[in-house]
């Protein structure tokens, strides 16, 4: 068996004429938290489904724990905990019944599953909701229950497809905290997201995907180091003037990006760049100095923002 839990070479998926995933290579090591970052339609979910053996590749190689999903679908799925993008909880059952029956779907004995329920309810902070119907839960609770459900079979790999999309900030932070704990316990996480903060928070290493291909790969910090500057100065001159001043601004720093509402200026020192702008006689309506993020990496790589 290879040292990697997941290994893809030339992985390709087509739907008719459309190539959703175009010959990508990546590996995921044990205990790693691996991210797929990219906008909607980049092919992230398709990759997830191929790993989850619920979608078959058209070309290339894919090995999950030494097995080929084309031949060993049920065995591979037994290794995985899947948290899909859209909730698929059983609305007819209560919270604890959802956990119970999901364990049973894996063929696990009743006694074993019943033993797991308490532990999972505690983990998901849903002890008080054990007898509640799923419908009565908030979005954040549903997500936590879905994660708890995915853990009932004690998977080595937890697959999370856009885990916090649609959640409010507080619910996101609770969820991130839970995922950190799993990571500490040695569970390998595979996460797709189009939120750069989520990728920065959760992923040890990630691939940046766009239009079915990998644009870059590395840790969040190394990607930022390789593809962006230390700081970013965001300036607004008003939507009609941004373009006009762009040429002047371009000469003052390493690189700029013109967005419809603002200009991003890439530099090692945002404050002194701002002073330089004022000194040149330009007066932005607003200005903001921040650290570079994965959003900037993505912008650099594709010329587009992550959330469009």
């Amino acid at each position: 068996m290879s040292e990697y839990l997941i290994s893809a070479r030339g992985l390709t998926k087509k739907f008719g004429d459309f190539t959703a995933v175009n010959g990508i290579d990546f590996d995921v090591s044990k205990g790693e938290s691996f991210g797929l970052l990219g906008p909607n339609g980049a092919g992230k979910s398709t990759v997830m489904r191929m790993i989850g053996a619920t979608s078959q590749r058209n070309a290339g190689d894919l090995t999950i724990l030494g097995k080929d999903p084309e031949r060993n679908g049920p065995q591979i799925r037994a290794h995985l905990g899947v948290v899909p993008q859209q909730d698929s909880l059983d609305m007819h059952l209560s919270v604890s019944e959802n956990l119970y029956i999901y364990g049973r779907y894996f063929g696990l004995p009743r006694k074993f599953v019943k033993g797991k329920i308490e532990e999972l309810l505690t983990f998901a902070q849903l002890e008080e909701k054990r007898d509640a119907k799923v419908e009565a839960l908030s979005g954040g609770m549903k997500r936590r229950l879905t994660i708890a459900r995915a853990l009932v079979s004690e998977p080595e790999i937890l697959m999370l497809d856009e885990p916090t999309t649609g959640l409010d900030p507080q619910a996101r932070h609770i969820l991130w905290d839970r995922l950190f704990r799993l990571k500490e316990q040695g569970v390998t996480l595979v996460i797709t997201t189009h939120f750069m903060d989520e990728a920065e928070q959760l992923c040890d290493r990630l691939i940046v995907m766009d239009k079915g291909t990998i644009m870059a790969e590395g840790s969040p910090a190394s990607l930022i180091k390789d593809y962006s500057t230390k700081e970013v100065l965001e300036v607004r001159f008003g939507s009609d003037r941004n373009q006009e001043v762009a040429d002047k601004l371009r000469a003052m720093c390493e690189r700029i990006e013109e967005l419809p509402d603002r200009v991003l200026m890439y530099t090692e020192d945002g404050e002194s760049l701002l002073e330089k702008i004022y000194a040149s006689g330009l007066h932005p309506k607003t200005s903001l100095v921040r650290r570079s993020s994965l959003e900037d990496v993505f912008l650099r790589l594709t010329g587009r923002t992550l959330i469009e």
Partner: protein
Amino acid sequence: MFIPMAVAIAEARIGKRGERYYSGRVPQLLERGFIAFKSSTWMIVLSGFVEPVLYLLSFGYGIGKLLPTITVGNESIKYAVFIAPALLATSAMNGAIYDSTMNVFFKLNHDRIYHGMLATSMGPLDVALGEIGWALLRGFSYACAFMAVVAPLGLIPSLWGLLAIPAAVLIAFGFASCGMAITSYMKSFQQLEIINVFLLPMFLFSGSFYPLTVFPQWLQFTVNLLPLTHAINLVRGLCLGHINMALAGHAMYFVVMIIAGLFFTTKRLNALFMK
């Protein structure tokens, strides 16, 4: 190396027939049915039993007053005896259709329950058989309850009538597997309504309330192609003790429905979830 129990269970099935589609999890799916059943809408559950009894009361004793006997072959039987088997067959059909269309459609498209199921080590044939199996359990209990009402009233003249219960299960199986197959191709709730457009006329014209011999030849021919006609003839033949080879033919009709339904359901679920 530590092997999780779920993996050990899945690996034990390697090399078994159809292992990519079927993992032997029908009992677990039935277990889900029982858990969900505890909190189901009891009115709907009961209506499946009450409906045929109401038909029997209103038609059997209403029309039965005007039409005391009816001739089948060369035998005269009470009108209620004539329609009771038809109502049993129809309730088997209705129960199976309800479970395999409305319920399945919601689980498939709205609640996404099958998405969750198929992310486990189960396969699409598990889901198909489990769902249909649940419809059969329901059909079986309705059939038993109906028999428990009509037999003491003397409406089942032959002891062969006991076989009407397994026959009702066979009928439910046929309708449930075809119902699920059709539902798996449906895109909207409105399309589902089309199924109902067929069901009511089939119920009215399939010889539930009078022998098909009253129809002109061409209509008899058409009606004889419909599944409910075969269901009614099968159950009625058993209840009246008219045992002949034609009954085997009616039963075969349902065996074909079962195989075709399961084939298309599994194929479609595979296309939807495993493509």
